[in-house]
C-alpha cells in the first residue's frame, strides 16, 4: 500500500479506537480511588508470609509462576539473540588487538563505577524481599556494570572477566534453580513453587521463605544473561566482519 493509504487505514483505526476507549475510560473507577480488592488480599498474604516488599511477595510467592514464565522469556531471548547474532557463513570474528585509546578520565570513571555498581547490584538482589529492588533489578545492574569495563576501554580485561561459557553456566544455573526450587516445593510440601522454607522474621534479611532464594536465582540468571546479551551485541558491532573483507583488523576502534 502507498504511504497515504496506509495513514488513512491507520487513522480510521485510531478513530475507531478513540470511540471505543473514551466511554470506557469514563466508566473506569476514579483515579486514585480506594477500590483495590486484590491489594488488600495481597498485602495480607505477604504479611502472612513475612515478606516486607509486597511486590516481591507477589512476584515470587503468590504469583511465582508468572515470574517463572518471565525468566523463561529472558532465557529464550538471550539464547535467541545469541543464535541470531552468531557470525554468518561469510563472516569472521576478529580478535581485538591491544587497548583502545581512551581518555584517562573516562577510564578512571569506569574503574570507579565498576565496584560501585557491583555493590549496588548485590545489595538490590539480597534485599529484594524487604526493600524495593530484587533479583531482576540487581541482575541488570550487575550485568551492565561489567560493561563499564568496556567504557573504560579495556576490552581484554572484559573478555577475561566475562568468559561466555561461564556466564552461560551462570544463566543456566540461575534459571534452573528457579525451576528446581519450584520442584523442591512440590517434593517438600506437595505444591509446585510452594513456600516451603522457614519464613523468618518480618523485615529481616532472610525473611519470606523462598522469596530471597528465588531473588538470588533470578539475580544470577539476569546478571549472567544480561552480560551475554550485551557481549553478543558488542561483538557483532565491533568485531564481526565479512571474511576477507577489505577492512584492516585494527582499523577501527571505539567511538
Amino acid at each position, binding site marked *: 500500500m502507498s*504511504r497515504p493509504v*496506509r*495513514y488513512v487505514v*491507520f487513522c480510521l483505526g*485510531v478513530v475507531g*479506537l478513540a470511540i471505543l*476507549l473514551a466511554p470506557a*475510560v469514563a466508566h*473506569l473507577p*476514579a*483515579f*486514585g*480511588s*480506594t477500590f*483495590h480488592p*486484590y*491489594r488488600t488480599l*495481597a*498485602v495480607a498474604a*505477604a*504479611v502472612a508470609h513475612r515478606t*516486607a*516488599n*509486597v*511486590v516481591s*511477595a*507477589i*512476584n515470587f510467592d503468590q*504469583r511465582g509462576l*508468572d*515470574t517463572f*514464565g*518471565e525468566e523463561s*522469556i*529472558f532465557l*529464550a*531471548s*538471550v539464547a*535467541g*539473540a545469541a543464535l*541470531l*547474532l552468531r557470525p*554468518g557463513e561469510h563472516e569472521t570474528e576478529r580478535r581485538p588487538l591491544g587497548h583502545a585509546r581512551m581518555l584517562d578520565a573516562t577510564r578512571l570513571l569506569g574503574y570507579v563505577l565498576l565496584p560501585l555498581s557491583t555493590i549496588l547490584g548485590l545489595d538490590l538482589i539480597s534485599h529484594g524481599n*524487604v*526493600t*524495593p529492588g530484587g533479583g*531482576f533489578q540487581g541482575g541488570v545492574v550487575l550485568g551492565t556494570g561489567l560493561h563499564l569495563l568496556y567504557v573504560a576501554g579495556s576490552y581484554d580485561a572484559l573478555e577475561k572477566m566475562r568468559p561466555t561459557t561461564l556466564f552461560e553456566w551462570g544463566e543456566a544455573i540461575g534459571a534452573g534453580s528457579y525451576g528446581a526450587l519450584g520442584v523442591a516445593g512440590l517434593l517438600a510440601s506437595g505444591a509446585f513453587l510452594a513456600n516451603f522454607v522457614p519464613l523468618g*522474621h*518480618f*523485615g*529481616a534479611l532472610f525473611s519470606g521463605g523462598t522469596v530471597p532464594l528465588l531473588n538470588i536465582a533470578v539475580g544470577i540468571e539476569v546478571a549472567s544473561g544480561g552480560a551475554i*546479551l550485551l557481549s*553478543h*551485541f558488542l561483538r*557483532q558491532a565491533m568485531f564481526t566482519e565479512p571474511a576477507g573483507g577489505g577492512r584492516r583488523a585494527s582499523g577501527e576502534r571505539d567511538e
Partner: protein
Amino acid sequence: MKGLIYFVAFFLLIIGAFGIARSKDLVHAVVCLSVAQAGTYVLLLAVGYQHHASPPVFGSPASRPTRDVVDPLVQAMALTDIVVSATVTALLLAISIQIAKRNHSVDPDELNAVEG
C-alpha cells in the same frame, strides 16, 4: 487527572504504533515499539494508584503494616512487562542487524523479500 493519565497511556500506545507505521528505519521501528509498550506501564500503574497511599514496601522491620499502600499487583505486572520489553527489543534489534547485512538497507520501503 483520570482523563489525563489514561489519555497518556493510550497516547503512548498509539503514537508508538504510528511511529512503526511511518518508520523508515527498522531500528527506529523497534524503538517505537518500546514506546508503545510504555503505554502499558502507565495504564497498569494508573489502575493501581490510590491517593495518599504509600509504596507497597514495608521497609522497617518493627512496623507492622497498617497504612494504606497502592496496589502491588499492577506493579508486579509492570515489572514482568518491562522484562518482556527489553528481551523483545533485543531479539528484534538482532534481526534488524542481520537484515541490514543481507539487504543492505533497513528501510521497510526498500525491503521486499516477502510479499503477496
